[in-house]
Each structure stands twice: as C-alpha cells, then as structure tokens.
C-alpha cells in the first residue's frame, strides 16, 4: 500500500468522527462544518463530498437536519447531534483516544529498541 493510499484511508476513517465533533458544540450548516474542518484539519478534499456523508449520518439517526429560512438570502440546512449521535460521538472519541495511546506506546517502544 502506498503512503498516499494509507493516508487516504486514514482520512476517510476519521471523517465521520470529525464531522460529529464539528457539530458537538452546536448546530452548524454544511458550509460552516466544512469551514470548521478546514480551520483545524486537512480532511476536506472536495467540499461536495461532505454533503452525502452528512446525509448518511442523518439517515443513521446520528444527526438531525433542519432547513432554516430567513437567516440568509437563501435557506440553510442545519445539522445538530441527536441523543444517539452524542452517545456515538462519546464512544468514537474514547475509541480514538485509546487507539492513539496504543500506537504511541508502540512507537515509543520501537524508538527505545533502536
């Protein structure tokens, strides 16, 4: 597997977690989620591919989507975490921290052995 493929898989694998984290502090619309992700990460490659993921997370019941009119010149679709989404985010965050800790331990052991 090439380095690029590995990085791409890593990016895809963490995108759900990143999107859920983006709306954990309050409802955000699609572009605001993208801008939040762009401000902290380089996970967004093509902006248009974020929307289908938001749609899937909504169908899975992790996000709640609502159209808001009157806030701008055009309507915006806001996404908010549902109760299930909050629970899932906590599980994913814990699993991620645990995973990073294990890999860090492994890397430290490998560096010590060198």
């Amino acid at each position: 597997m090439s380095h690029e493929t590995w990085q791409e898989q890593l990016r895809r694998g963490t995108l759900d977690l990143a999107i859920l984290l983006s709306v954990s502090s309050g409802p955000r619309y699609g572009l605001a989620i993208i801008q939040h992700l762009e401000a902290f990460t380089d996970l967004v490659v093509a902006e248009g591919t974020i929307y289908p993921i938001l749609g899937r997370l909504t169908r899975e019941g992790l996000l709640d989507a609502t159209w808001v009119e009157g806030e701008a010149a055009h309507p915006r679709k806001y996404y908010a975490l549902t109760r299930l989404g909050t629970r899932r985010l906590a599980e994913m965050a814990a699993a991620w921290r645990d995973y990073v800790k294990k890999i860090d331990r492994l890397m430290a052991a490998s560096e010590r052995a060198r």
Partner: protein
Amino acid sequence: MTLSDVGEARVNGYLFVLQRSLKTFLPADAVRDAVREIESHLRDRIAAVDASPNERDAVERILAELGPPLRVAQAYSAERTIEEAVTTGRVVPILRAVWQLAVSTVVGFFVALLLVIGYVTGLAFVAIGALKPIFPDNVGIQFVNGFPVGLGAHFPLDAGVDLRGGYWVIPIALVCGLGILVGTQRGARKYLAWWRNRRVS
C-alpha cells in the same frame, strides 16, 4: 459578489448536471433536497467571495472546490445506494447499486456482467427444476449421438435429440440453481462492501 446573468447560467448549469446525475439513483424528494443544499452552499460561497480579478474565475474556483457535479453525484451514490445494499442485503437495492456502478465505472460494468451471468444461470437451473414436472418429456439432459450437449427445455424436441433424465433432475437443478443464486448474491454484496470501503469521500 452578485452574479451577472452569465455567472447565474454557469451555476444553474452546474446544478442542472448534478440534478440529472442524482436522478438516476435517488428518489425525487432526496434529489430536490440534495440540490437545494448544494445550491445553498454555492450561494453562501458566492456571497462571501470577491469578484476580482473577474467573476468567471471566482465562480470557476468555487465550483472546483465543490468538485465536478458527476463526482458529487457519485459520492451521494456511494453513501446511499451502496450503503443501503450492503446493510440490508436485499435483492432490489443490491441490483440497483450494481447497475449504478455498471453505468458509471469500467470495473463496475465487467463485475455487473459476471453477476448477470451468475443470476441468469441460477434462474435457468431453477426454471429447469420447476418445468420438469410440467413438461417431463421436454426437460432434461439432451444427448446427440450419445454425447450430452445441453441441459434444459426444448419445445418441440429436435429430431435426433435424445432426452434423458428422470425426476431426479428436479432436486439437482433446484439445489444447483439456488446455490448459484445465493453465491451470486453474496458475491454482489461483498463486491459492494469492497466498493464502499474504497469510495471517494
């Protein structure tokens, strides 16, 4: 930035292509919602951007950042059609997802061809098993000059063709047919799961 008529036409053209692409695999209300959301994204981006050095470059940059409409549609397809097929394992969503990939990728086309051969072969065996009790003299193994040349139903039986095989053909044909159908269905689901895992997002 407020768009000129030319800029509006470019944005509407993008949305039109997206809508046409989405229509092939999404229900009408989902297409409307998706296009409305992408349009909202574009309007926000356009409102925030400066029209310098010229409007055309600014619009093209915004559309490029969003991604080509076919790619956006493909991402919707991967998230929706394939997801439904893999998670439910039902025949109709699986066939819909296989068709979607067959018309959009070369690999998908050849895999779909193999799967169609599998489904048709399985159905043919099942049909043989079902037709044997109705047409016992026309369904079985066909021999010409002592050599087996085919298995199936012939209406009417050609001269010189010797039809062999009693009712034992029924269970064998049904087991083979159902086995091939189940195997093809599992293969299709595994293929879609593999595709979902390598999807572009």
